[in-house]
């Protein structure tokens, strides 16, 4: 059942290679649509109250290596799978009709979707690593063939960074298995490992840096602005919306999940790291003159909240972190899509050139309205999905790391600053009549944004749909963390009521 998510797109990619040119987009849309529906059906089969892996699949593969084909889904991976399905469909839908080399383009996107789904589903460390590396190649091609200017530089940078990330992760996985003397890379078997703390910390640092590149965290982020800016809009949607989540997912699954002791020891440092990321991303974004670059830096800032939620390690902050992963994916996707539309219609991304797009007759009124919505969702205005996620993270982490949390709240303020700059310059202002002969915005370009806007809005009003997916899993992840962390929380807090609150919480 889960295998369908991986192999159906692969079959689709092969089928696309032989289909006539005219039906390619339709075929790709159908395939990714089926995958999305299948994911939703899996969500329907999923038991939300059960924190364990569900719908598991097992096939022995390379016994001597300890590599087996093991798949499973839990509350951490399910939201990511849905996000992957949705954003893949959106990315294909929003692509231009007359794209060059359509066969290769759609096949590669489907391959990305398949590999990412595989990484989210894999319950064997080596299998995860395989999918994690496989996804790299199509992305490299997608950036270097269909990208903008400086695409080769960007693609190479992306490739090198991610290769380093992969090497570090592989080293950590190998180290864990060999030092532990385990005979298999199965995730479940490795969960109860009992390595000395210092070794765990060393391995965890490898995992953190490895996935930290993917997320990315400051100062491992410099591939991101170049890559996001060089990538075409559909690829940027996938990069920011899905691929970055792979890093966050990896940190939770293989960092927090495998090394809870070490994680608890490093937690204060992680929270500080997250805060630095948030403030750094937001501050640099303010200085950008290119709206796509600005959105790219905003992504760095927002991924910091996820790490903050993870570092705080209570049920609330972890649920918030997972929610933030989804929220960030949706918001970034809509922003990249709209920025792409603005670029194709107006022909520039420069803040100093853009002006007055809200103009109802000659401007791009609907795109501007949606851009306002996306920007405000990113700035954490209530009623939109970003707020719920950030608030849950903050409320959870405040109990543990008050200072860092408050600094991250300042970060949301800075987010508002750069989005107001962006909106004021692009949407507001006076449209120059002499240059305002923009091509008409097509429904193909509106519909993806409308779907995303609706989702952002709906999950903001009705966040239960979002949080209940992951609640029981994150709760059990917190329970797996040794008692080490709990007294620390209680001490920092003081007061009986607080402890009661904490206990009901955890």
């Amino acid at each position, binding site marked *: 059942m889960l295998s369908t998510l991986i192999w159906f797109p692969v079959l689709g990619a092969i089928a696309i290679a032989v289909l006539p040119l005219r039906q390619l987009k339709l075929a790709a849309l159908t395939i990714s649509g089926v995958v999305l529906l299948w994911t939703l059906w899996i969500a329907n089969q999923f038991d939300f109250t059960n924190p364990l892996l569900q719908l598991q699949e097992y096939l022995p593969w390379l016994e001597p290596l300890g590599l087996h084909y093991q798949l499973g889904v839990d509350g951490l991976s399910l939201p990511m799978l849905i996000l992957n399905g949705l954003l893949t469909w959106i990315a294909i839908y929003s692509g231009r009709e007359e794209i060059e080399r359509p066969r290769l383009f759609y096949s590669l996107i489907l391959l990305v979707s398949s590999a990412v789904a595989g990484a989210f589903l894999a319950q064997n460390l080596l299998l995860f690593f395989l999918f994690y590396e496989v996804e790299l190649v199509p992305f490299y091609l997608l950036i270097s063939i269909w990208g903008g200017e400086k695409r080769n530089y960007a693609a190479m940078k992306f490739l090198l960074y991610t290769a380093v990330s992969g090497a570090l992760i592989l080293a950590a996985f190998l180290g864990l298995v060999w030092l532990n003397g385990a005979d298999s890379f199965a995730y479940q078997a490795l969960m109860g490992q009992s390595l000395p703390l210092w070794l765990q910390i060393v391995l965890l640092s490898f995992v953190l840096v490895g996935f930290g590149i993917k997320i990315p965290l400051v100062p491992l982020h410099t591939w991101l602005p170049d890559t996001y800016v060089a990538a075409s809009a559909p690829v940027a949607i996938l990069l920011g919306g899905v691929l970055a989540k792979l890093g966050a997912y990896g940190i939770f699954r293989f960092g927090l999940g495998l090394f809870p002791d070490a994680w608890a020891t490093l937690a204060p440092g992680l929270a500080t790291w997250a805060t630095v990321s948030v403030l750094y991303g937001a*501050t640099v974004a303010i200085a950008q003159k290119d709206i796509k670059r600005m959105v790219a830096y905003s992504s760095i800032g927002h991924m910091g909240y996820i790490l903050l939620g993870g570092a705080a390690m209570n049920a609330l902050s972890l649920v918030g972190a997972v929610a933030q992963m989804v929220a960030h994916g949706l918001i970034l996707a809509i922003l990249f899509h709209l920025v792409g539309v603005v670029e194709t219609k107006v022909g520039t991304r420069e803040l100093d050139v853009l002006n007055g797009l*809200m103009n109802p007759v000659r401007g791009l009124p*609907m795109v501007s309205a949606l851009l306002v919505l996306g920007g405000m969702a990113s700035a954490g205005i209530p009623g939109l999905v970003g707020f719920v996620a950030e608030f849950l993270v903050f409320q959870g982490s405040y109990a543990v790391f008050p200072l860092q949390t408050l600094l991250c709240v300042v970060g949301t303020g800075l987010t508002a*600053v750069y989005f*107001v700059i962006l909106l*004021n310059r692009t949407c507001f*202002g006076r449209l120059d009549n002499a240059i305002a002969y923009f091509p008409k915005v097509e429904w193909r370009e509106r519909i993806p944004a409308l779907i995303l806007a609706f989702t952002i809005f709906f999950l903001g009003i009705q966040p239960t749909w979002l949080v209940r997916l992951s609640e029981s899993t994150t709760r059990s992840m917190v329970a797996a963390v040794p008692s080490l962390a709990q007294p620390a929380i209680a001490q920092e807090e003081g007061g009986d009521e*607080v402890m009661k609150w904490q206990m009901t919480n955890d």
Partner: protein
Amino acid sequence: MTQFLLQTVWLIPCYAIAGAVVSILWSPALIRRTGPRPAGYLNLCMTILAFVHSLIAFPIAWQHPAQQLSVPWLQVAGLDLTLPLDISAITVGASLLVTGLNMLAQVYAIGYLEMDWGWSRFFAFLSLFEAGMCSLAFCNSLFFGFMILEILTLGTYLLVGTWFNQSLVVTGARDAFLTKRVGDLFLLMGVLAIYPLAGTWDFDQLAQWAETATVDPTIATLVGLALLAGPMGKCAQFPLHLWLDEAMEGPLPSTILRNSVVVATGAWVLIKLQPVLALSPVVLTVMITIGAVTAVGGTLIAIAQIDVKRALSYSVSAYMGLVFIAVGTGQTNAALLLILSHALAQGVLVTSTGSIVLNSITQDLTQLGGLGRRRPMSALCYLVGVAGLIGLPPLGGFWALLKLADGLWATHPWLVPVLLLVNGLTAFSMVREFGLIFAGSPKPMTERSPENFWLITLPMMVLMGLTLHLPLILQSLALLPSWATLNQEMAILLLWSSLTGIGIGAVVYVGQNISKPIQLPWKPLQTLFAYDLYTPQLYRSSIVFCVDWASRITDWFDRQIVDGAVNLVGLASLFSGEALKYSNSGQGQFYILTIALGLAAIALSMSWPLILH
């Protein structure tokens, strides 16, 4: 049936929201055929519906004790976010005020924005504000209150930005959003911090908790200050007052709502939070100080303005300062009464000056004058507004200020002179505007300025009627003090301060013996007030400057140092590869030499322990 209407008051915000949502169809020009007008009428209809509902529900709520409703929203990981609704006379009354004012404002807007192209957006945002304020009235939780306030912050940004192709509007919208957002973020910090302490966000339970709570004074102060910052931003208190002035660049009909009730949203939350804030005496002192400074400073600045709308907006800040004083001294009832009387009086003042501005095509006080004979209705409304705002019996402002002064006299006597001063200065400031607009001889801009048509005049007159009737309404609700309990000395003091202000204002500005513009003997003082105590410059050279440079420096650091290091690594490997390739000479001897040297090195290192022994 009556119970049903009361139980369903939560629908009141929903009507407006529905109107706003449907307006989307017209706003990004999805429906072009009809033009945007239907959106305006639709929103007006929804507001009338909400108003009628409130109007019927109010007497019922008055007779019944307060009821609670709760709507589950989100339960996650032990955190229970249920929206508690408080249906009582005061909350239904607040929604009645909001819907009523919005109804009048929308009728006014239909007239005022006759030819405007932003209709559907504008009306949708008015409805959003109506919905937000009504739900804030009913909502009994700090968390949801924060959510609503923050959505309204966005609403302010968009509403002020209605005419977004003017550069002053764009900066005004930006400043309004960012200033309010600063307040909101502090409020968010307070919201986050208070939950671990109190374990609840419901205002009732917070008040109960505050009665018995023992909190570390430092923490109580910090939390209190954070909670105070939100209302400070909303109520445009010093130093977060700048936005209200700049928001006057927005369309005037929205000012009706903003000056009268939107700024009061902060005060409403403040009143609800009063028991928590009272945990720390420092917070109360800060609140009173900010209120007093804003009240006096705001009025002085208002006197120095030459823009009608801006002068009014500073008076709003000043009155909200009085509300801060009232809440800081624990007189929440006086604060509520003050909000009510101020809302109606400001409504009249804004509608009447707006009616002048529309026909005279200027809002510059120095260009206006001599309109008294041409615009008798507007002049009358303006005067009633002034009388309702300041302490002039028998209108609403008098009773509110009297109640406040009475309470202050018992607890904080030194604040009574501040109150009297503000009242007197406001009276002077209002009469100054009256004199500059209506007295004297007509000027070029006011030569052709007849009364407006009914869509503008009718709301203005209705508001005037309401202001005049406010004492009767209060009387029928038994909210006025009886003759026996009246503090007569205070009443006389208040009356004197008003009369002094009016008198001086009338002599200087209504009488034509003193030449205008009036210059203070000391010029810098006048410019200080005229330029809003140089607050914009202060912001520009402090916070804006810091954020700007911090972002530039970080950006430079990011490009040159972080990315530079990465590129350096890449360059180094390329360069070393380039350099090393010349070592491949193709000579066999050289390779053999390398191999031999390597072997020797390995052998040496392997046998190193042996050699040592």
